[in-house]
């Protein structure tokens, strides 16, 4: 029996569709400003940390709606520590990176131990970290620097987490008629990714058909591939366009030089999202996380080590926080005491809006990405419309609430409260008549 139906597909992708509609809305409202290459690029570039922290937060939330409030403060602390190692103590970059990672592992292990084995409620254990690390980071920065910020990071450090690669003139190409520069590697990456996605879509279907399993119809796989490919190609095209144009003197003549390239952050994002996408969807590790969140007792009696799963969730979160700290620090080429403020809330909101269950047991990387992007789009769109920050916050809060209500009501199916209220109301009306 084939259970494929368009209704189910739409139901499953309701958030993606909402994102698309909202994006179009803001593009129209800003007279296309949303869709310029610099705005498209900054939507991803600026919010890279949300996606990375979101991946970690997703793993925590899967185990039963548990969150990590210490993310923002620890990110600030990790940045400060990286600065101390790299800038103040002149430790070479590979070693200082290893040391910061070590700090992350130690904190993650302690936190994981407290939560999983001492059974301290996660929000309390991480609330302690939220308070302590902000203070600790500020103290460190004040002690080592008069401006209470560490800058002058070594170039090699910065290049690992920010900037662009493949920026040499040989990789650039100009469409003379449009006066448009494009970075060739960006386009190549986009084309390769599109090809990969299409190939995976079709080969998965072919495998299923070969083994006689239920598979989506060919036309649907084709449409899906076209949509996904189009999104990737548009993004890569926008990134290819992005870059400064400078005029340099070469051999006595002034030459227009375009500095396009593949943003390092994008590569990090692709790597992290792919890894965590695979972990959650395709491995027993992901299955264990989901089961602990779905029903902890069942998980225990099925031979899953619940405590180890909880421990791993928070260890993992701290490691990803270190990565996000390095990316954020490199982006501003400075570690300061205000870094990472409210980042934990951004990550939690991304998960919630992205359909990750607030009670654990279900959620996906793709959902989290859509959630993070949706919030990013609202943020950027309203800012471009020059709407006051306070109103942006109000709207974001309402979106978050709506997402949770939607998730819970849609799960309740038959006995959802709105339905019964409406039914009662209409019954009363009828009776009055």
């Amino acid at each position, binding site marked *: 029996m084939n259970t494929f139906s368009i209704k189910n597909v739409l139901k499953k992708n309701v958030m993606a569709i909402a994102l698309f509609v909202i994006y179009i809305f803001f593009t129209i409202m800003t007279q296309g400003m949303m869709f310029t290459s610099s705005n498209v690029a900054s939507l991803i570039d600026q919010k890279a940390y949300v996606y990375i922290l979101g991946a970690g937060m997703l793993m925590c939330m899967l185990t039963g709606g548990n969150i990590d409030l210490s993310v923002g403060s620890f990110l600030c602390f990790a940045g400060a520590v990286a600065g101390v190692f790299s800038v103040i103590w002149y430790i070479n970059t590979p070693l200082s990176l290893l040391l910061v990672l070590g700090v992350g592992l130690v904190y993650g292990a302690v936190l994981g131990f407290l939560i999983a084995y001492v059974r301290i409620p996660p929000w309390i254990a991480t609330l302690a970290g939220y308070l302590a690390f902000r203070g600790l980071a500020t103290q460190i920065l004040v002690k080592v620097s008069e401006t209470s910020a560490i800058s002058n990071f070594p170039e090699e450090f910065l290049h690992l987490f920010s900037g662009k690669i493949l920026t040499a003139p040989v990789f650039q190409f100009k469409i003379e008629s449009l006066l448009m520069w494009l970075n060739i590697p960006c386009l190549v990456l986009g084309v390769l990714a599109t090809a990969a996605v299409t190939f995976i879509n079709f080969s998965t279907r072919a495998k299923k058909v070969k*083994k006689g399993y239920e598979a989506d119809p060919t036309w649907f796989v084709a449409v899906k591939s076209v949509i996904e490919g189009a999104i990737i190609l548009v993004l890569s095209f926008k990134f290819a366009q992005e870059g400064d144009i400078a005029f340099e003197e070469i051999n006595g003549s002034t030459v227009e030089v375009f500095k396009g390239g593949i943003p390092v952050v994008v590569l990090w994002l692709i790597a992290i999202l792919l890894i965590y996408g695979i972990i959650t969807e*395709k*491995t027993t590790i992901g299955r264990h996380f*989901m*089961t602990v969140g*779905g*029903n902890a007792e069942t998980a*225990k009696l099925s*031979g899953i*080590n619940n405590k180890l799963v909880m421990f791993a969730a928070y260890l993992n979160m701290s490691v990803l926080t270190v990565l996000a700290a390095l990316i954020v620090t490199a982006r501003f080429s400075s570690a300061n005491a205000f870094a990472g403020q409210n980042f934990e809330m951004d990550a939690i909101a991304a998960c919630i809006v992205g359909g990750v269950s607030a009670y654990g047991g279900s959620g996906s990387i793709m959902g989290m990405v859509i959630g993070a992007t949706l919030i990013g789009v609202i943020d950027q769109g309203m800012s471009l419309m020059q709407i006051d920050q306070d109103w942006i916050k109000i709207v974001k809060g309402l979106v978050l609430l709506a997402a949770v209500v939607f998730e819970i009501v849609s799960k309740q199916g038959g006995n959802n409260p709105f339905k019964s209220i409406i039914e009662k109301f209409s019954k009363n009306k009828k009776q009055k008549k």
Partner: protein
Amino acid sequence: MAKVLLEMKSITKTFPGVKALDNVNLKVEEGEIHALVGENGAGKSTLMNVLSGIYPIGTYEGDIVYDGEVCEFHNIKDSEKKGIVIIHQELALIPYMTIGENMFLGNEQGKKWCIDWNKTYAEADKYLEMVGLTDSSKTLIKDIGTGKQQLVEIAKALAKNARLLILDEPTSSLNETDSRALLDLMKKLQKEQGMTMIIISHKLNEVSYVADKITVVRDGSTIETMNSKDEEISEARIIKGMVGREITDRFPKRHDVPIGDVMMEVKNWTVFHPEFAERKVVDDVSINVRSGEVVGIYGLMGAGRTELAMSIFGRSYGIGISGKLFLRGKEVTLKSPKKAIAAGLAYVTEDRKGNGLVLSNSIKTNTTLANLKAISTATFIDKDKEYQVADEYKQKLRTKTPSVEQLVGNLSGGNQQKVLLAKWMFADPDVLILDEPTRGIDVGAKYEIYCIINDLAKAGKSVIMISSELPEVIGMSDRIYIMNQAKIVGEMKASDATQENIMSCIVGVGGESEGSEA
């Protein structure tokens, strides 16, 4: 003749797929202690839930006539207003509140917006004295034992001006002395205050000690009411009423299944309660099971059957576990469910929603959960293989569902049970412990589950089937252990077993304790 305080007239209550109560009639006179007895699932608790408004008017058929008028209870508050108070088996007290606070929870003393604590504690002390408790009402609940907690529950009910007190298994978590004290209190309340009480109990010796009248409930109907004034009610007499059911061919036969060597053996197994560390929930139990054999463990709820099973299965229940466990003659120590599964054990829980399945997940993921290794390489799950496995079991066990992608939460009880069985069959164990495998599922599905059990035995597996349904235990087992009050009180071949001699094993324990016979 005394005035009739309560009359329940032809009460019928249906749950999806199951008729829990079928035309039940119950008459309780003022000032009497009326006992309801029957097997698990006979419908006693359902009947009391109807009476107390937990199942509101409209969800059942029939009338409740109380104090001369027909009542319509929409919730517990309605019935409490009339003086009908139910004390559940699971105590509903909050450990970190004082006795006084607990007693007046939802019934706070003083003005609407301000609790009068002096009045609260004074009143509380008054009622505590009535039930013979000398502790101060300012003591925290967690600091008094379960026996006293049960008394607090009664005091709480008195504080609500109860006229009809319903006690659901009040002594199930009490020791001998506390139980006797409670029963004496019931008699005292009856004598001094003319309180009317309904007691639900499995302990027949207690019932015959305390009750004026005994009504037997069986398969959702009231069978008979015995009056202690008219006749001497012996326990045997009650059992006759409770059982009275013939075993027909509701059980598929196993032909020519060779019974092999001892597969698993448990010796001198003792387990203590995880919260009340002084309470033994399994007491010096020794049992064994052979390959190809179906061993039944019969016992009423609270006898320690589930505790025994779970403590064997990787110590997933209890503390201070002592005793030896042998698999194929070799002693093993299984410290976690993971190790138990690896050693070839499977525990199919009685509580499939609570700790057996993940309701929000698909049939597919539930089926493979206990043996993910078999469908994955280096942690990568082969989803095609997973689908194949789940579909195979779906067909083998005839699970009724359009697709294995269906969420388990959407299935009927019988089909959920099949998914649970599939999960543990896929784990490929040598020993399966089935805890109440047919609880809450309809007759047709039961038969299918029995066939699956037979197939397992045919495949040379050892099956331990825990059940509180006598016909099921007798009809399905090769050998039967009888468990009561944490001990094994009897062992017999199924061919020798009758409902009467099994029940008399349980009654025989009454006061004096027998050692395990295994």
